[in-house]
């Protein structure tokens, strides 16, 4: 098992402390809410697509550090990308977090987002990292709300019981 300390790297702590692109977006044309009912993570992601390219993007909400840093880094990475390029990142991020993509050996476009690769060893935290990316997918496809507990969610797994 990877050292969980490795997950709380400075870059993640920094994005948690000073989240980038944080706040509401008045002129968004795509928006979605993401929410994990089991742990209470809740974020809203808004963006404007101009000619199929993400012009501006912002998020806000209440969540753990992993989720907040993931959302913050999502916004900096997705800004300027086309919808298809964003969807590639969504897929690759999810595959990395669930252990289906080994970023050390396989080709990918994740760049510094690989700091989140450590969550694959922490099953209860995988959803925290993935939630913003699910929400981005929902926003791009203009589904209003996404949840890590929905039937379509490939990561469906309970966080815990009493």
């Amino acid at each position, binding site marked *: 098992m990877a050292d*969980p300390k490795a*997950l709380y790297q400075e870059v993640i702590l920094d994005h948690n402390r000073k989240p980038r692109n944080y706040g509401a977006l008045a002129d968004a044309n795509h928006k979605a809410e993401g929410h994990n009912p089991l*742990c209470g993570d809740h974020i809203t992601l808004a963006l404007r697509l101009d000619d199929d390219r993400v012009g501006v993007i912002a998020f806000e909400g*209440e969540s*753990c*550090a992993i989720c907040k840093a993931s959302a913050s880094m999502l916004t900096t990475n997705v800004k300027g990308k086309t919808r298809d390029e964003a969807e590639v990142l969504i897929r690759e991020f999810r595959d990395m977090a669930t252990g289906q993509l080994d970023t050390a050996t396989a080709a990918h476009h994740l760049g510094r987002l690989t700091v989140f690769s450590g969550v694959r060893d922490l099953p209860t935290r995988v959803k925290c990292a993935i939630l913003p990316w699910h929400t981005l997918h929902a926003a791009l496809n203009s589904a209003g709300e996404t949840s890590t507990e929905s039937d379509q969610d490939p990561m469906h797994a309970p966080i*815990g019981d*009493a």
Partner: protein
Amino acid sequence: MNSTSAKRAVAKSAFNVDTIRADFPILDLKVAGKPLVYLDNAASSQMPQPVIDRLVRYQKEQHANIHRGVHYLSETATAAFEEARGKLARFVNAREEREVIFTSGTTESINLVMHGYGRKFIGAGDEIILTTLEHHSNIVPWQMLAGEKGAKIRVVPISDSGELLVDEYEKLFNERTKFVGLSHVSNALGTVNPVKGMTAFAHARGVPVLLDGAQAAPHLAIDVQDLDCDFYAFSGHKLCGPTGIGMLYGKAAQLERMQPFKGGGDMILSVTFEKTTYNTIPHKFEAGTPPTAAAIGLGAAIDYLSNIGMDTIASHELELLDYATAQVNNLPGVRILGTAEHKAAVLSFVIAGVHPHDVGTLLNQDGIAVRTGHHCAQPVMQRFKVPATSRASFAFYNTMAEVDTLVAGIRNVQKVFA
């Protein structure tokens, strides 16, 4: 020395936590290279060797289906199963063994009362009183019933310290009040509720009371005759027993008038396609082959706890709680939720600027197991306006040194997030 500390000192002289710990193989485990510090006992406690041995002996020497065969093994298994029922009856001081029903745990016990009592005796416009402190398992079944019958749920509020507002409770009663469901001890905050007086108040108005004892039975001596509750429920796995077993105590007169919860074998006297005659209590409520091994294991766990003594257990746990509360109160930026005067060994806390799930992951790195989340008590979280808390919950096998490890762990979390 006041009388409380004198009592604790006496109990302590006979209690050696190192000897106790030697009975729990799992406590030798290393997690993330560190000795396990298991502080998630309110979720589930660990099993001592005598209970493990009892389960093994049952499977190796005594297993067969119960209440059915005339052969040696069936009779042996039946005797052991019923002996466990007797142990549980004595543990809660029930008048009669037939007042003890084996269930899969507290959740099933409450569902049994909802189906067996609620669906028969609660109707449209009737009211059920619950409290803000309830675990979801003592909320959801009653909501299901209310939805089905057109009944109404009334909720007892709590104070800022996490204590039930008993005056408000008393004001909720009216002629439509038909049932009260109360937690004996809050799982999220550790508050010990004044259930005896609240039960007497309900009874004076002819209203039956169910006590959810899931968090009380591991920490307090339970006397259902003294409490005078109609129903008392708890789970075996929080009492050093196996999962999948628990009990419902019910006053015989109530159990007799209730309808069965599940239909099947063992709960009948005779079956034809025209008519089935139900078995007597407790068997009326025990359809199908029970988790016999788990029931017998729970009996062994009761023996183990009784040998130590519930008062001795309570006194050691309160010492741990007092010490932990004082230590955590000394940490700037850490807030304890649940500061009731009368508490069991639960310490729920939030660290300013750090989400409980990050706390839990970082503590785990120090080998410390705590629960993080809403503790299946979302109304409590809503009351304190937090999404979740971290919860350290102590058992009699925990040590002061483990509390020190927890406090150091919290300091480390604060350092990482500084």
